[in-house]
């Protein structure tokens, strides 16, 4: 047992203490962490506090007044707040509020008009020469925050904007010219303002009170609440679809990284001929067990790093409530079951080949196995209890990924299915380890032509 531990410790340190690992595994979460914490503090959500004029050529003579109102800072703030509330609804109302998020950043409060662009409007005569009026837009902007007297945009409201001709119904009712490199959010805001103003003018023309119509059309969307055996839960469409995928990716990354690393170290030991020195001190079974355990610790490190990072990120966005401890426990169990099976196969392949490139053909079916849940992610996520999902839940090593996807979904599977899936995976692990142990013993000292899967099976029978 002590020897297995020594092999495992060496395997762990030899993998973790390399520049490649540090850069690839440790640096990535560090960069993500920096992005999560620093970038929101460095950038602002709102557009720059730009100042300037919007010139209006209103060929209808009705819209300009409405447009002046629509382009005020107050209306900008109201429209932004509306968009924000829509996004918040998508992310889930119960998992954090605008206030909580703003507390973690220096982003401006989108409901404050003083944070919005300060636009004044100039109404030009209906018969103005459009080409002449475009000239001020071509002059360079000396101050990046603008100037109250500088022209930022020119709006031409078409003559038939209020009552479009039958043949022009599909055409735009206005033209908008803006100066180059104007903030795209401001351009969007101006578009929204114009559409709002034309819409209001059309309602007026139809004899309707625009304010009343808006009020009548506005139906506040309610929160969706999912009813489960545990009770009533607030529903978050976006996070409910992201979380299972995130868990599956996490499992895949940790297993692929340490599985690949195990294969590489076995092949290296074999091609370096150090394996014979090792076999004079430990049995092939002790060597294989030590290596698998060492890489398992590597996988745990990756899993812990990314999970920890995810938890911190969720906590910082006040979304920690999304994570259930049972799900984390199942992630841990899934990792163990999937890892042991994949690691056993990788160890067997590594022992059978003399060079890493010889392993590629043997790796192909294993990689396909690992990629299958990825390809089937959408149908499984959409219907976690379909026949396909249930059947795949019992076929190791895919079962671990599929079951995790289902467990993290809105409609987790029945407990018996979870138990049976674990049982099937455990059986798969047993078969894979036995197979690997036999192939490992024979393959370690075999050099020459790269074997096929048939050869591996023959070796397993032979030993």
């Amino acid at each position, binding site marked *: 047992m*002590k*020897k297995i531990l*020594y*092999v495992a410790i*060496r395997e762990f340190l*030899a993998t973790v203490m*390399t520049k490649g690992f540090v850069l690839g595994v440790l640096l990535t979460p560090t960069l993500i962490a920096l992005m999560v914490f620093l970038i929101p503090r460095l950038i602002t959500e709102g557009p720059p506090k730009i100042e300037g004029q919007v010139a209006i050529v209103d060929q209808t003579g009705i819209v300009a007044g409405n447009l002046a109102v629509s382009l005020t800072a107050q209306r900008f703030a109201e429209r932004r707040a509306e968009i924000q509330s829509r996004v918040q609804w998508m992310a889930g109302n119960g998992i954090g509020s605008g206030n909580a998020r703003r507390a973690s950043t220096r982003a401006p409060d989108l409901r404050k008009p003083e944070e919005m662009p300060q636009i004044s409007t100039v109404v030009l005569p209906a018969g103005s020469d459009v080409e002449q009026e475009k000239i001020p837009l071509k002059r360079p902007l000396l101050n990046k925050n603008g100037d109250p007297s500088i022209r930022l945009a020119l709006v031409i409201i078409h003559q038939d904007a209020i009552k479009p001709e039958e043949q022009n119904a599909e055409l735009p009712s206005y033209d908008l010219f803006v100066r180059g490199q104007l903030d795209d959010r401001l351009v969007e805001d101006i578009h929204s303002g114009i559409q709002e103003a034309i819409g209001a003018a059309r309602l007026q023309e139809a004899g309707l009170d625009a304010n009343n119509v808006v009020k009548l059309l506005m139906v506040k969307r309610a929160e969706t609440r999912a009813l489960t055996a545990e009770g009533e839960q607030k529903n978050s469409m976006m996070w409910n679809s992201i979380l299972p995928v995130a868990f599956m990716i996490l499992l895949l990354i940790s297993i692929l990284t340490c599985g690949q690393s195990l294969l590489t170290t076995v092949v290296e*030991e074999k091609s*370096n*001929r*150090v*394996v*014979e*020195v*090792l*076999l*004079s*001190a*430990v*049995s092939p079974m002790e060597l294989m067990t030590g290596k698998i355990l060492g890489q398992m610790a590597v996988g745990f490190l990756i899993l812990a790093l990314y999970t920890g990072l995810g938890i911190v990120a969720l906590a910082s966005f006040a979304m920690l409530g999304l994570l259930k401890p049972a799900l984390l426990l199942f992630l841990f169990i899934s990792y163990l079951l999937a890892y042991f099976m994949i690691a056993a196969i990788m160890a067997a392949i590594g022992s059978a080949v003399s060079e890493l490139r010889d392993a590629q053909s043997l790796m192909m079916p294993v990689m396909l196995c690992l990629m299958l849940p990825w390809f089937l992610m959408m149908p499984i996520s959409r219907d976690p209890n379909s026949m396909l999902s249930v059947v795949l839940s019992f076929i190791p090593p895919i079962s671990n990924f599929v079951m995790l996807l289902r467990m993290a979904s809105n409609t987790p599977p029945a407990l018996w299915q979870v138990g049976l899936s674990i049982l099937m995976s455990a059986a798969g692990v047993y078969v894979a380890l036995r197979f690997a142990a036999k192939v490992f013993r024979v393959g370690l*000292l075999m050099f020459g032509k790269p074997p096929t899967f048939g050869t591996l099976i023959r070796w397993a029978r032979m030993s």
Partner: protein
Amino acid sequence: MTNAVILKNVTKAFGETIAVRSFNLSIPEGALYGLIGPNGAGKTTLIRMILSILFPDQGELNVLGHSSALEAKERIGYLPEERGLYKKMRVGDFLVYMARLKGMDPPDLKSQVSHWLQRMGLPGTERKRCEELSKGMQQKIQFITAVIHRPDLLILDEPFGGLDPVNQRVMRELILEEHRRGVTILFSTHVMAHAEQLCDHIVMLHLGDKVLDQALSEIRQTNDPRHILFEPLDPSANMDQLRSIPGVREITSNGVGWEITLASDSSASSVIPLVVRAVVPAQIQIRRPSLEDVFISIVAGTEVQSEENAKLRASLRDGGEILEARR
């Protein structure tokens, strides 16, 4: 005397090729046995079976009182033919790791490692990575891994391969030192001269069969000398007259003098007086048969004087190719 290694009717085949065939061997404790034979004779397979790295298809093994070396790995030291080190690992860490795998874990393990490095003429290499060392230095590191845990059985597979003459001498001294400590040593080589210099008992293998298992002294006694080295007093003397002496089969020049090969039915004692009478010698001596000669005589027969025989000799001197043709 108790035997450190016992092999009874051990056979190992790889597919159609039989690597070791019905092999019997007993190595007494404290002995220094030479396992010799050309490349491909089955030496490494035999060693791997003794170490339980490979398992025999048939037969029984007993190593240090156990039916499998797996139960006695901590008492065995092994220097394999193929040198293997973790290239990126530091020398000190590698030696500590190997010592621990061999069951050593004393508090002063690191100082023991330093002591061994000092002894091998490699001071200050502890912090170096294995790949930074020369081939000879790497071999010394491997030798340390084989002996650092003070084993009772030391198996050395081609320990002189890749070493310069100075380091060969250092290695020879270290092996003899271990032998004096009472360690049983099994020394495998295809270079017969190395075995002749070191071992007190020789086991010869050829194509998986044991062809000789005898003490070196007995080998020398039982194999009649068939060659006489002769140097005439007058370098211009007519040597052709020696060819007509009864019992002389062949006379060849060796640069300095002449080598007289005796016919199979004659002896040195009957031929030497006749040679001396024919040409006045400056020096005459019987050349004792080397292990190489013995091996050739056993596997090829003295009458065979073919190109194949010359290839076999070459392989026994400096590692020629496996004699596939003989299979």
